[in-house]
């Protein structure tokens, strides 16, 4: 899984992801955890590795980590931020 050319930036207490180029002209607002997950995807990463990294940062179960990743990936994919 890898993000396209997307910038993740902190703004006024929340995180936003915007794409450089591409068709989507909006942005996604996200919380800190979601931004953390998205940032790990700047380079190609497997779901398993991402779960490990997320669990090393936050004290959560494997199930919770997987669910969180799925939600973020789904959201990013819905606006075309993820490379196929």
């Amino acid at each position, binding site marked *: 899984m890898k993000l396209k050319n997307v*910038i993740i*930036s902190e*703004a*006024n207490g929340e995180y*936003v992801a*915007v794409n*450089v*180029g591409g068709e989507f*002209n*909006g*942005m996604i607002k996200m919380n800190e955890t979601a931004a953390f997950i998205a940032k790990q995807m700047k380079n190609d990463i497997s779901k398993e590795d991402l779960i490990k990294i997320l669990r090393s940062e936050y004290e959560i179960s494997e199930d919770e980590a997987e669910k969180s990743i799925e939600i973020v990936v789904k959201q990013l994919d819905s606006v075309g931020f993820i490379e196929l």
Partner: protein
Amino acid sequence: MSDYNNASIEDIIEKYGFVIHKTQGVSMLPMLEEGRDLVRLVKVNDKSKLKKYDLPLFEREDGALILHRIIEVRKNHYITCGDNCKTYEKVPFRKVLAVAEGYFKEQKYISCNDEKYINYVEQRCKNIESRNIYRPISKEQRVLVLLFSKALSNDSGIEINYPIDLDWEILYKEASRHNIAAFVFPYINKGDCPEKIYIQWKEQANMVLRKEILFDAERQTILKEFESNNIDYILLKGIVLKNFYPMKGVRDFTDNDILTREEDKEKIRKVMEQLGYTRVYTQDFADCPYHKAPIFNFEMHMRLFSENMDLGKHFKNIWENSTRVDNSYEYKMKKEDFYFYIIAHFNKHYKNGGAGLKFFADVYFMQKALLNSDDFDNDLVIIKLKEAGLLDFVNKCNNIIEKLLNSLKGKDGCSLTDFVLSKDCDALEFAEIYDILSYVLYSGAFGSREVMIVNQLKEKSSFELIIYKLFPPRNLLACKYTKLKKYPFLLPFYWIKRLFATFFSKNKRRIATADYKMIKKHKTDIK
């Protein structure tokens, strides 16, 4: 004046000694605002004995009732002129019906004998030919000023009592025209605004934030290239000012302005082209704007102000006076220089085509950040501003900012009647604030060509202005045709070249025609 005919007005005054009446139209701005202010009229005992600057109510030949000021007293008639007009009118003594004794500004009564009122009249009538002609401030503009004041004071607790007939679409358009849609958006309650406009406004605010994030990232890429190519640079205007604002993504800006050295022009061109930018044509050789789709505009300046401008000399040694940041190629202006530059830049826009509300926010947040810092030399700035003739301008700006902030202080609810203009001002102060606010509100974010022509007509007659536009002076043309700097005798050649270019370009022809129409529209009409 409405509702009464001449007979009834005179009858009422005869019976009660006075009449209080609303006014119509814009001809007595800034003193009387339509639908808001009331005038107190009294009987005139001897119609031939009114004085200069009295305000009679008279009847025109067509029966219309007019309240205009006496500018001159002649043998059998008065010469009158509205405070917001430049056209004189003859009024025979017998046509006078009553005279104003005072007026109500909101709930405040101002007598025509009030000292500040007399000062206002004297100032307003000092030079009728070159006085500013005002457009009325609409209710949407008043609400925008309130929202702007809320955003300035960062106080979302104050409720605005929006007028029932407020057109939110116009309000949104006005906010966009002033580039402050994103700045004021956080202070709009969802429930107050029609859903469709609210969504549109929110999208606009998000777009400004998105734009800032993209600009920041893109600028980093460009400056990295500058660093590896040994290109010196100073960040200017919005790129710096945005950091003084309390929130990210609220200061809308379209260009990234960067000061660079003239000798690096070619190196910059190569860097920018490598990054996919194209050079945009500009009349001024000292500004090199570059554009890349979809939104990236980077303007590389070779100087802060044109050498033709007096201000140019104040910033002649800007590189020597700036400090290199660590071991990079970035230079930073002294705080005092930056402050002085922003004020001078604001003033340049203000004087030419006008400037919008955003500039006041820039000045306010910049002052908040810089003036309170320990190492800011306030005395030095005052000397510089004084030398450049800008001190009065800064004081006026700060007066407006203070009024805007105070207009909301200690209020449980904020309605139109709490609008800054109604705040315990005397007539003179009111006129001064109205003068600036109506100009700013009409100008929009970066002013307009029409405002520029109106301003130019204050210094030149319409004929002189047309000649000036057809045959501009050498120093102005030399910005575009650089050979003129070295060979001044080529001026007539470039005049003809320029006229041909205008004739054969559809766009230039359109601009020239529009200019001509505006000159005709705004030329001083003295009868």
